[in-house]
């Protein structure tokens, strides 16, 4: 409770300064929202709260199936990291999924091919793959993996990936992160090559395209939940519950506001 009190005092102190966007009320509401989240997050780290169970995410469960199929076919797997670079949240979540993929790939001895459109993301992916291979005691596989930078531009990036897909004919393709107009160009081509495709994205406009062309999809917040689910530690699992709690609070807030406005 001490933390809660300290955060409340800090909040009152902070709103005594001039808030940006104060005239629209967005500043105060945003601050309130942020603080509510912060307090809940801190409180939910308490070990007193019992462990939580989460439902299985089909897309994550299918990762092993996809990599297994690739191994049977003797083909590599392709990981595409989206067009928003690390440290954007979607890319960070995508990297966590890549860690899991690398672990599974190491177990099966299947090489990973991963082109990137940002060098920082490329470095993060390299570390993630190295860590995954190390934890499965198959570091030698890194020699067969290919993690590289392609280009920053959207459509040349899409063209490069399509050329690569045609060349290496991967058994499984994973798309994790933020995508724009290139999503269908990539996934429809991947579909044509017969690869099993699993995507995870926070790009709302691209979800219909991924649904049409991919075998599994982590939709919107599922990508972030999957990232926590993969980590499988208490704090991460609690954060999924937190997310649901925040959603319930948001719904309640909207209903109250509708009621107040229409009163």
């Amino acid at each position, binding site marked *: 409770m001490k933390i809660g009190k300290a955060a409340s005092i800090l909040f009152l102190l902070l709103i005594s300064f001039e808030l*940006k*966007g104060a*005239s*629209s009320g*967005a*500043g105060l509401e945003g601050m309130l929202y942020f603080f509510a989240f912060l307090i809940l997050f801190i409180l939910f780290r308490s070990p007193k709260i019992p462990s939580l169970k989460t439902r299985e995410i089909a897309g994550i469960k299918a990762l092993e199936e996809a990599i297994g199929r690739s191994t049977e076919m003797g083909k590599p797997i392709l990981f595409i990291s989206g067009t928003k670079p690390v440290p954007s949240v979607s890319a960070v979540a995508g990297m966590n999924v890549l860690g899991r993929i690398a672990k599974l790939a190491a177990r099966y001895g299947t090489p990973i091919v991963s082109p990137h459109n940002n060098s920082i993301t490329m470095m993060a992916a390299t570390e993630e793959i190295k860590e995954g291979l190390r934890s499965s005691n198959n570091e030698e596989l890194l020699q067969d993996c290919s993690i590289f930078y392609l280009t920053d*531009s*959207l*459509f040349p990036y899409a063209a490069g990936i399509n050329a690569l897909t045609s060349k290496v004919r991967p058994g499984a393709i994973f798309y994790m992160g*933020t995508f*724009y*107009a290139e999503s269908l160009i990539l996934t429809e081509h991947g579909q*044509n090559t017969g690869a099993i495709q699993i995507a995870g994205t926070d790009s*709302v*406009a691209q979800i219909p395209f991924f649904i049409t062309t991919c075998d599994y999809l982590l939709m919107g917040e599922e990508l972030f939940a999957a990232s926590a689910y993969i980590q499988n530690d208490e704090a991460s699992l609690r954060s999924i519950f937190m997310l649901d709690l925040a959603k319930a609070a948001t719904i309640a807030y909207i209903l109250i506001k509708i009621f107040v406005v229409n009163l």
Partner: protein
Amino acid sequence: MKLHRRLVYVLLLVFILVPMLFGLTFKVKPTKPVMTFFDSVAELSPGDYIAVTLSFDPSTKAELVPMLKALTEHVFAKGLSVIFLNPGSINVSDLGFSVISDIASKYGTIENSDWYYLGYVPGEKAVYQKLGEDLYSVYPASMHGVKLNSTKLYKDVRNMEDVKILIDLADGNSTVDLLTYLSTKYDVPMAAGVTAVMASEYYPYLESGQLKGLLGGLRGAAEYETLLNVSGRARRGMAAQTLAHILIMLLVLMGNIEYFMAKRKNG
């Protein structure tokens, strides 16, 4: 399926090329998002300032340049003062400037007096925020190096709060970023023109009133041209788009017939 796919592509090419070669045109009826966009510009008085951000890559110019042309015609005809800038995309600088200067010469408007082209500065979201505080800390000079403190703009506009409306022409996520970091935070009214694949994403912002209007793809540009009563590239392109849409509907119909026939065959 392999043969089918190739046939589909050839048919689509034919359906797009034929109306273009024969110069077919169709009338379009303006929809509400385009009308509200048009009205929010039309209701401004001569001399009012508006800002137009070009946040697209030249690769999507087929959809967005017709919008830029129609909008520029409208604002110059109304005698508005316009700040053009492209902090979201470095690649559109030359293309945007050439389109705007062509239309400016038609209306006799003068650069750095009636309109300003500020160009690109790196930083995206950081730039969007700074625009709400001090325009000249981000853009001390125009794209061609004219110091802005010697222009009329410097006397009239301190930051984006002083413009009547901000319009974003975009092929990516810049509209959401501008709404978050500039429009909502600094109370700047905003409208947007986006590619057709992105348009459905912006309806929530339109319905909430955060966007005053929305132009979606070539159709949006064609509707704007209709409201302006000009026959531009967008209206001419609508014939090809119409036939392509009809082909897609026929393909979906064929796909379903094929599916049900196969289902019946397999019992």
